[in-house]
């Protein structure tokens, strides 16, 4: 496959007036036109506003101004990022028609960097899912095989980038919702350290775990996007008020002298072809000068259980506001309790209801300590376990997901099995750490496999540095048949 042109190059050409933002946009809109019907990556393609925006970027360039590092670059947004005046649904009926009166901080930062928002991507309803099948607006298909899921919950963003609909996209990652679909769709996806990217304007799923991060076709493109969206935001109290690592500038620094730990717990339940790819990536890192070690962090085995107590607990509270009073859909009834109930019963899908009830249960009187508080103690143990590992290793290596993309419908009626597909991504969220998924060749079925690099808090620089070396050694993937290639 011919690699898409680096975003930095495209932006440089647009800034130099050698290519117009309108041309770049029209190319992507044409690709969407050709492929969206079969993939359904978007809840909304913003053709008109994107064209206005691209023309404005070109006008800025013509006037001698610099629109910024993402000048004229189309970016797709997960549909849980608030966009002023533009429907933001979280792929839920309950928010159908809602137009936020404000922009998320990341949306403002993209605008300030010259990006062109091309559309809002499909997702699991309120980001609850691992396959994008819980969307109220239909599932998204994996561009590599339309009978397979794209992963989730940011499946629309992953599929959009994989299909060439947009060179960049944003997703949110609460338990793997960027990295797992990135792996399944064969693109790069990264979950930043908790607090490095503002959550202001990200519709909350589980507030202590949610982070926004980039999707791209290359490590360098992801780095560029991360540098644009990261940094302190006074509108988010959990935003870290300290220098955010800049990653683009350190990409070429190599791995010589680094120690990479292969995380044995993550290999345990993974398919053999996935394990083989992880080992191949480890060999490539060794060849580039890293020391490879097998390392065990037994506590991560508890991550899945802890996550499915903590995340639903927070979600049950975060989703209480969808009550039919102030915005969104209402189903009318005699009294307010009945109206709330009718609205929520009609407005939420099965997975959301499942998690709301699970979360309500674990927070309720009598169960709080046995479940929710206990899960928070496990969280402490997981952080301690990682700390022991990072005392010896710079980064950890493992698979992103235990399998390649599974068939649409295969797990949708079996929540626990579905939850297990997040087993390798969840511990990072519980610890608040960064991690990145890099495509690393096809599996036995020809579908993409992702390898994951994990690091301690604020180690984004190191992660991207190692990721660049992994990427350079990655076996080629089959071109998704929908993709028609980048403009040349």
């Amino acid at each position: 496959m011919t690699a898409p042109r680096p975003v930095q190059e495209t932006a440089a050409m647009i800034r130099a007036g050698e290519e117009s933002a309108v041309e770049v946009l029209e190319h992507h809109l044409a690709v969407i036109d050709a492929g969206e019907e079969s993939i359904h990556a978007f809840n909304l393609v913003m053709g008109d506003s994107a064209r206005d925006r691209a023309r404005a970027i070109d006008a800025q360039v013509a006037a001698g101004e610099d629109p910024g590092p993402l000048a004229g670059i189309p970016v797709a947004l997960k549909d849980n990022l608030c966009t002023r005046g533009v429907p933001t649904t979280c792929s839920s009926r309950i928010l159908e028609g809602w137009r936020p009166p404000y922009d998320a901080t990341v949306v403002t930062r993209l605008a300030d960097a010259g990006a062109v928002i091309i559309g809002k991507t499909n997702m699991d309803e309120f980001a609850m899912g691992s396959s994008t099948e819980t969307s109220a607006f239909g599932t998204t298909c994996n561009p590599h095989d339309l009978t397979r899921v794209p992963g989730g919950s940011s499946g629309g963003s992953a599929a959009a980038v994989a299909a060439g609909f947009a060179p960049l996209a944003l997703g949110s990652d609460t338990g793997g919702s960027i990295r797992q679909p990135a792996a399944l769709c064969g693109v790069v996806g990264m979950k930043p350290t908790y607090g490095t990217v503002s959550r202001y304007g990200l519709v909350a799923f589980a507030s202590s775990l949610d982070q926004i991060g980039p999707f791209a076709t290359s490590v360098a493109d992801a780095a560029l996007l991360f540098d644009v969206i990261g940094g302190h935001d006074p509108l988010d109290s959990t935003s870290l008020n300290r220098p955010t690592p800049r990653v683009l500038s350190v990409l070429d620094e190599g791995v010589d002298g680094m120690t990479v730990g292969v995380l044995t717990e993550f290999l345990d339940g993974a398919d053999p072809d996935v394990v083989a790819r992880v080992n191949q990536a480890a060999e490539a890192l060794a060849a580039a000068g890293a020391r490879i070690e097998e390392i065990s962090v037994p506590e991560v085995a508890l991550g899945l259980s802890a996550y499915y107590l903590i995340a639903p607990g927070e979600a049950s509270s975060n989703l209480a506001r969808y009550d039919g009073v102030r915005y969104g859909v209402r189903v009318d009834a005699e009294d307010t309790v009945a109206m709330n109930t009718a609205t929520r019963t009609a407005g939420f899908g099965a997975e959301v209801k499942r998690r709301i009830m699970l979360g309500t249960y674990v927070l309720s009187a009598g169960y709080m300590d046995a479940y929710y508080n206990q899960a928070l103690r496990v969280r402490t143990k997981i952080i301690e376990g990682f700390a022991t590992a990072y005392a010896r290793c710079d980064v950890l290596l493992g698979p992103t997901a235990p399998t390649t993309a599974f068939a649409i419908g295969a797990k949708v009626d079996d929540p626990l099995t579905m939850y297990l597909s997040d087993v390798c991504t969840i511990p990072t969220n519980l610890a608040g750490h960064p991690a990145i998924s890099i495509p690393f060749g096809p599996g036995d079925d020809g579908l993409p496999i992702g390898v994951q690099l994990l690091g301690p808090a604020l180690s984004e620089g190191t992660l991207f540095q190692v990721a660049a070396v992994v990427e350079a050694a990655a076996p080629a993937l089959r071109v998704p048949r929908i993709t028609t290639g980048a403009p040349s």
Partner: protein
Amino acid sequence: MTEPARLTREDVAHVAALARLHLSDEELDLYTGQLAQVLDHAADVASLDLAGVVPTAHAMAVTNVMRLDEPRPCLDRDEVLGQAPSVEDHRFRVPRILGEAP
């Protein structure tokens, strides 16, 4: 830590009411089974002896985040009310409220 009792159909009906969700009889059965399965899986966590371990609610230890007491622009009222399912007299209209606020 002793494991809590197994989730019952009544528990699910109770949390559904707390969460303002209505479940049909079939749904009650379905969700009771599914949620019990997830909680059974969580038994590995619930049964651990973690006495003395401090719970982590925030992964990053940050304290004292505040803003100055300075007004910021409010939203345009028409824009706000324009999103509401029902409005009267510049207020959000809701059906009868049966009980006082707790």
